[in-house]
């Protein structure tokens, strides 16, 4: 990128699991600060594997990952994990404390925040996702969509550089989907969204990457990528019934 440090820089990333299965064969891409990028690709392309490299959960391959200039590695792990906020697919895995407030506070508290400062962070994060009234509720009292939003808040509370979302719209009803889209649009943070929901990608992300067979197969404007029938077919991507990306005028 240019003078401003990229939010995320991945170069030459290759990785194989202990059982021998190689998932990534040299991934290269960059995401600029403030960008919203969709990561598309068929099942088994290596999207989740790639995501787990971004905050150092998976290591041992080759290549580098840099978050706002800081390389992902043993040395700065705590800071990397603060900068990269991953929201996994199942909110129940991420809301593991007895109340919403404690879940959102977990991240900043682990980083050393206490007292009034901690409360402030928690309140701000909950405001951002519109869940402030649910502060003292236990997670199982919330609907799925609400839990998803709180999961986003748990990560926002750490004031990350980049927000990585794994299938954010999956299992959400249309109203919750829209609520989440509004929240994501209102955030002032870099977003990398792994998704199968192509209309959602088109709505929120101006730029899309296609990860296929462990490499980046395409990188361009979402509208153009989705309109390229041959490209889509080659990587097992299909548009929903009746959806014509060329006819979409608003959104990204």
């Amino acid at each position, binding site marked *: 990128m240019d003078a401003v440090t990229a939010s995320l820089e991945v170069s030459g990333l290759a990785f194989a*699991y*202990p*059982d021998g299965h190689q998932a990534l064969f040299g991934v290269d891409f960059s995401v600029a600060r403030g960008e919203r990028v969709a990561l598309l690709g068929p099942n088994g392309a290596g999207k989740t594997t790639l995501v*787990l490299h971004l905050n*150092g*959960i*998976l*290591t*041992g391959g080759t290549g580098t990952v840099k978050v706002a200039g800081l390389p992902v590695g*043993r040395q700065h*792990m705590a800071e990397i994990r603060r900068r990269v906020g991953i929201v996994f697919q199942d909110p129940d895995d991420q809301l*593991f404390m007895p109340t919403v407030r404690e879940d959102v506070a977990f991240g900043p508290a682990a980083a050393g925040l206490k007292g009034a400062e901690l409360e402030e962070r928690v309140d701000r994060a909950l405001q951002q996702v519109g869940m402030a009234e649910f502060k003292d509720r236990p997670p199982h009292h919330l609907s799925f969509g609400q839990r998803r939003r709180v999961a986003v808040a748990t990560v926002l509370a750490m004031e990350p550089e980049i927000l990585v979302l794994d299938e954010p719209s999956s299992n959400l009803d249309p109203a919750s989907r829209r609520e989440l889209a509004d929240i994501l649009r209102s955030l002032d943070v870099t977003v990398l969204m792994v998704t199968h929901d192509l209309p959602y990608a088109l709505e929120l992300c101006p730029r899309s990457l296609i990860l296929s067979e462990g490499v980046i197969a395409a990188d361009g404007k979402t509208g153009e990528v989705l309109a390229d029938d041959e490209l889509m077919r080659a990587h097992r991507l299909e548009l929903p019934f009746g959806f014509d990306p060329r006819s979409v005028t608003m959104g990204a």
Partner: protein
Amino acid sequence: MSHISRILPVRAEELRSQFPAHRSCKEFATSHYHRTVHVPDGFIDAPTSAVTGVVAAAAVAVSLRGARRELDERTAPLAGLVAAFIFAVQMLNFPVAAGTSGHLLGGALAAILVGPYTGVLCVSVVLLMQGILFADGGLTALGVNITNMAIVTTVVAYAVFRGLVKVLPRSRRSVTVASFVAALLSVPAAALAFTLMYAVGGTTDVSIGKVAGAMVGVHILIGIGEATITALTVGAVVAVRPDLVYGARDLRQRLQLRVGGELVDAPAAEPAVPVAARSSRKVWAVGLVTSLVLAGFVSFYASANPDGLEKVAADHGIDKKTEDHSTADSPLADYGVKDITDARLSGGLAGVIGVGVTVVAGSAVFWAVRRRRTDDVSPSSTSTTAGSSA
């Protein structure tokens, strides 16, 4: 459910919402009864409750350290989720005949699936929370309940399981068989432990022989149920994810090589200390036989010489008969201390002592062998889902 609402002053809907899984009153009664077999307050006197409390606390402390050694920073989430699993699976109905159903206690299953330390922790946490959150089991009886149901079952089951796995051929079937026997013995062991506690600190005057008989008898039946469920469940897990079963750590899949177009078994990896492995097998076999002989011998001796026990009791002055409550000069006197020189009592007590010695001896052998082993590979390092994190 409607006829229940005529007996209890609650609305049928409330009951239905609380117990959705029930389809008949009988099912409700039997399954619910089983859920509350935890010992309540007042059953065991204060001093004994205190002592068992200390024993339980010590065992839990040891297990905390052991679990952390094995699971490191993953201890809290893994043990917590396994505890949640135990808590949930205890509610699973295993129907026996029309209306009645059995339930899993889970101590043996926990020990075999996640090891003794984590197993003790999980079941202890379940019992602790049941006592505090659901008023299930007396608060002063926590020591008794945890010692019986979390510690004795888990330790006995694991000791028996390890012992059997060492002497049986290395296969998945052996793991299942060993699970069955381990669980089968764990339940009466807990019953006997309870009988021992009752003998020392029971607040009622029922003859120890009767209690032992009733307890052990019923619990052998329960043990068969527990053993069947445990063996089947362990078998089910081993079939899909053997790497998750602590007890099956030694079963590793034989790798194959493709040599000249044909599949050939890879040479088995050299065991770390081959001599020790062979001799430890011998130790286990000897240990088991010794325990059994010891049990038989001590029981025989004890029952053949009840007068011997009486004499011992008289020599040590523990045969004081206390009848007059109002002139008691010590608090202990009022708890109905049984006369240990009672013939029936000494006979029953002998049996208890016999098995008690067996359990202690067996466990001692197990601990001794365990210490000498080199560090085992824990299941966490064979996990293929994610590499190490920092």
